[in-house]
């Protein structure tokens, strides 16, 4: 505890003494995390939109003619038992006919008269199967087709796979950029800490002679790295907090056409992940950057 207290005081002093390097490191981490935040917001919102789209992408399952109710229930149970199946909705022949009429004819058309009250879709009862992950659609269709009592299964593969592929592309591109920036941040923290070690070379050597443990010597530098990382995480969090809400509002008010199908994650929800993520990444790179540098330079000084 005393070591921590001493480390905290000296670590903050180090930051003050190496103001230039500390500011450069804070600036880079803040930039890196700011970009991470933007990418994260893009990905999470895109995923949210994909999720909403996915909920609307269903598989339609048609039954054999004259299928019994028990058999339909058995099929439902089997389909629901599949992992990524979120819900199964039964559409009776009458409902199907009603939907068809609504979609194809205006209310003025007396379509019922044409068919004399009969339901031309009487063997078209079906299930609409909704998935939580559209990438599994093909295997689910394959599975359903094998079940007894199934006449036809319709999927919407193109939509499903293009959504999943685009989502993956965005994730990979942003992950590469973020990893590159994180490496730059670690390098800058290491440099800031290395400068601190050089400045305090005499002090470290004296501390060694008077019996300081490695942890006691390292603590101020680790604190320095962690504080730089933490400040570097807090700055973009504040900026993003203000920018995110305004940006969403801007898009929704200025691009009304888009707002019909763009569904944004709300700010609070977004920051539920961003706050711990930023602090973890900031503190993590601060700690790793300083630990690597301290280990290397203290060994050299022995």
């Amino acid at each position: 505890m005393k070591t921590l207290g001493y480390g905290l005081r000296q670590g903050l002093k180090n930051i003050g003494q190496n103001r230039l390097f500390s500011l450069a490191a804070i600036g880079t981490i803040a930039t890196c995390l700011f970009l991470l935040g933007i990418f994260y917001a893009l990905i999470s919102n895109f995923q949210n939109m994909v999720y909403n789209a996915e909920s609307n992408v269903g598989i339609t399952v048609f039954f054999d003619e004259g299928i019994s109710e028990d058999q339909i229930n058995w099929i439902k149970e089997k389909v629901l038992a599949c992992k990524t199946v979120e819900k199964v909705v039964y559409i009776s022949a009458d409902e199907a006919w009603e939907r068809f009429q609504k979609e194809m004819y205006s209310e003025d058309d007396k379509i019922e008269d044409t068919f004399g009250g009969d339901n031309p879709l009487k063997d078209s009862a079906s299930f609409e199967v909704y998935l939580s992950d559209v990438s599994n659609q093909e295997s689910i269709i394959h599975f359903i087709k094998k079940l007894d009592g199934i006449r036809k299964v319709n999927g919407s593969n193109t939509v499903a796979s293009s959504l999943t592929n685009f989502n993956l592309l965005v994730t990979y591109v942003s992950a590469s950029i973020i990893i590159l920036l994180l490496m730059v941040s670690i390098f800058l923290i290491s440099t800031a800490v290395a400068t601190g070690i050089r400045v305090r070379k005499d002090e470290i050597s004296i501390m060694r002679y008077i019996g300081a443990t490695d942890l006691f010597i390292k603590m101020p530098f680790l604190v320095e790295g962690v504080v730089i990382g933490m400040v570097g995480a807090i700055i973009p969090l504040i900026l993003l907090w203000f920018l995110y809400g305004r940006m969403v509002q801007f898009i929704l008010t200025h691009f009304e056409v888009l707002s019909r199908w763009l569904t944004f994650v709300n700010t609070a929800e977004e920051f539920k992940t961003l706050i711990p993520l930023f602090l973890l990444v900031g503190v993590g790179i601060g700690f790793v950057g300083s630990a690597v540098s301290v280990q290397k330079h203290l060994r050299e000084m022995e």
Partner: protein
Amino acid sequence: MRQENELIRLDNVKVTYPAGTEALKDINLSVQKGEFMFVVGSSGSGKSTFIKTLLGEVKAASGRLLVAKHDLGRMKRRELPYYRRTLGVVFQEFRLLDDRNVYENVALAQRVIGVSSDKVRRNVMQMLEMVGLDERKRAYPKELSGGEQQRVAIARAMVNRPSILLADEPTGNLDPKNSWEIMNLLEEMNQLGTTVIVVTHNNEIVDKLKKRVVTLNKGEIINDEVQGGYIQ
């Protein structure tokens, strides 16, 4: 009786540097608790290596080195800081931290070993009184004379009450008056029970104090006298 009081023991200690130079050759030596010992010799005689070996900075290539019950040959790297707490060290160039005042320089030694703030204050002030610098506790090293700086260094070395005080040329940068003041202070520490080992070139001091003198030459002990003098 002699073994009970033995604080430092070197049996056939040999130190070789990577270049192959033999800095210490088969050193056999025993130092008792409370002794005051000078280590003298010309440049390159092995005096500095002797101090570095006692500090655990240099490892012996062979032989056995026991200091305050610590076997330095078998000591693990992580045990070194705890061993060093049994020693106090004073250097020729004082090695004080210029950005900290007298009080903070001495207090550092206490903070390193995790002493509570109350005790740090009490111990540091007691030590500063002992070396006569309690009224200059807020002064920075650059505002002090060489003699005063060395007194601060002694206070820092002694504040943790080590059993051994190693002084490497403590009067090397001082004028005769300050040199004597420092030697008197070291004697005072010795009288309080601390074993004091002083490496020096100062023949006048060695001859006048009539303490034990170990003379090194080319890494070997060529003379070890109880009330000795400086051999050129």
